[in-house]
């Protein structure tokens, strides 16, 4: 059905009119289409690796045997259960250039904070920052797999004189690499479908200079603001293809890095 619509001129009410691949051709000539694709790619390229790093660092920290660990774990996990809309509304205010506490703290240490969501250059860093706040889910996954790493491997490495750093690089990371791959792929797929935060934080407009006009936001605008169901369907299918290609590429590239037990 969706594919059929993507080949038509269709406003959602009248009968769809078949126009062949016109909609796809229009998209490829549409500057906003390319901008939204680029915005999404830039966001994903920063948010996913940084998210993995932060989640991994937290998981390694939280895997230590200390008193009160379950409390710490809960505290880092809690932000990820906050409803997305609520988190977005909260972050708009948190990052308010003038009255927000984040820039207030930056001023305290002598840094003049940027305009965040009101500045085209800082919009995406603001959204990436917000995404790092809710890495709790990824962190829990890493934590679970860290606990599966056999203790005797560490003991053997210690006997060989390996320090904590080398143990992490040569034992921990290879063993949990399949989980990391899984979260990277989920992150990529999620990144390309980034919508709610961008919609809420910019009031559905795409923000200053369209810096937050993400792919799915543009798709939504096409479908429900401009009543171009055909064009939106075409966008949806192109998104599907993009996600598919990126996932396959990631799998291919990952073969060199990911270690599967028993191979």
């Amino acid at each position, binding site marked *: 059905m969706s594919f059929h619509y993507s080949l038509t001129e269709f406003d959602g009410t009248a009968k769809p009119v078949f126009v062949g691949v016109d909609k796809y051709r229009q998209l490829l000539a549409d500057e906003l289409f390319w901008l939204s694709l680029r915005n999404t790619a830039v966001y994903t390229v920063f948010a996913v690796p940084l998210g993995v790093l932060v989640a991994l660092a937290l998981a390694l920290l939280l895997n230590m045997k200390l008193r009160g660990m379950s409390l710490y774990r809960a*505290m880092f996990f809690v932000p990820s259960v906050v409803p997305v809309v609520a988190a977005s509304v909260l972050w708009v205010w948190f990052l308010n250039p003038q009255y927000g506490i984040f820039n207030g703290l930056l001023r305290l240490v002598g840094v003049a904070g940027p305009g965040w969501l009101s500045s085209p250059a800082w919009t995406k860093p603001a959204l990436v920052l917000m995404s790092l706040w809710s890495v709790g889910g990824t962190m829990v996954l890493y934590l679970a797999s860290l606990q599966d790493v056999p203790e005797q491997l560490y003991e053997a490495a210690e006997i060989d004189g390996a320090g904590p750093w080398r143990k992490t690089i040569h034992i921990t990371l290879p063993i949990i690499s399949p989980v990391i791959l899984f979260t990277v792929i989920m992150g990529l797929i999620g990144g390309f479908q980034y919508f709610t935060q961008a919609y809420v934080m910019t009031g559905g407009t795409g923000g200053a200079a369209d810096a937050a006009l993400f792919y799915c936001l543009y798709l939504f605008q096409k479908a429900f603001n401009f009543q171009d169901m055909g064009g939106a369907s075409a966008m949806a299918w192109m998104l599907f293809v993009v996600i598919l290609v990126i996932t396959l590429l990631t799998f291919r590239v990952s073969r060199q890095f990911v270690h599967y037990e028993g191979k």
Partner: protein
Amino acid sequence: MSARGSARQRFARSTLSHALLIAMSCLFLLPFAWLVGTSLKADDDVMEVPTDLKVLIPKGRFAPIDGRPQRVSVGQHPIDYPAKIIRWDEGPDQGQIALIRASEIADGKVKKWLDRPSGPEADMFPVTVVKDVLASADSRWWRVEQHPDALATGQQPLWDCVPDSNVAVRFWPRWRNYVDGLAKYSFARFYRTTTLITIAFVFLMVLSCSFTAYGFGILEWPGRNLVFFIMLCTMMLPGHVTLIPVFILFKHLGWINTFRPLVVPALFGSAFFVFLLRQFYLTIPRSLIDAARIDGCGELRIWWQLILPLSKPALMTVGLFSFLHAWNDFLGPLVYLTSEKKYTLSLGLAMFQGEYGTEYGMLMAMTVLTVVPILVLFFVAQKTFIQGVKLSGMKE
């Protein structure tokens, strides 16, 4: 021979780790503190440029006026000249109050305005001097905050001139943000709507998914694996691909601006939850099911009386995550609900963020109310949460 060192080293290490963890927790919890702090602030307190962490604490300014401490706000330009507070009436219940330089009033008539050149023409009305203001270098013109109900009749806010040294700043949470927000934004209705939708959604979802999973996990029929595989393939499609055809479908059914598009799809289950439950059902011993069959149990009864009770942990996970989905869903309500009366919490919050974006106290109070049920749920069902995340790798 342990390379881990002496007890003292261990103590130092654990102290350091705790310090690091506490510092990072504070960083992660800062947005929450900011949220709750702002939700209890009055408008004048919200619009204060933060210079240190004390800004997290909601506070009010109080000054002795008419013999009792009253809250004042919006302190304006220093009044370091002889001045008078004057009052006039433009009509019944239309009392006005203003500050004027002593030199600008003569014989009960205003000669020139100090702070409102284009204000109401007070010289048309008889003016009475309320009191003389003692000028001092640190006096300011303050608005005296009265109970909001007192202002409901169109009465103007009171103003008075108070020296800074008489103004005390103290902890003062404005709980009214919650009351006002619930009334003004009709959040109470959003709450009801969201709760009803969520309950219906979870109920239908758990029922339909476990029913379907029974067909894939327990029953045996030709072509089962193929159908199961096709169902799994639907998981690969991004939601945005199906969004438009589904929207058109609901439009043809005349379901736009009803709750049906948000609830009825639960009846058709979710490929992912079916998969999750099927995997769980596969771990249930076949002998149990065979025994039930020998005892003459029908398939429906086996499902209802045997499988459902046995799969409680998995059902809890499905229930919890479909609860989260329904409670947090934004795109669905955004697309299908067009009248404000039918908004859900998420949609309402997002819309008010755009419309009343400056009333941060109330906006944050409503955000707190959206978050709290989920947080309570999290702390009650922490284990199920973590289990669910591990099972699914889902982030939302």
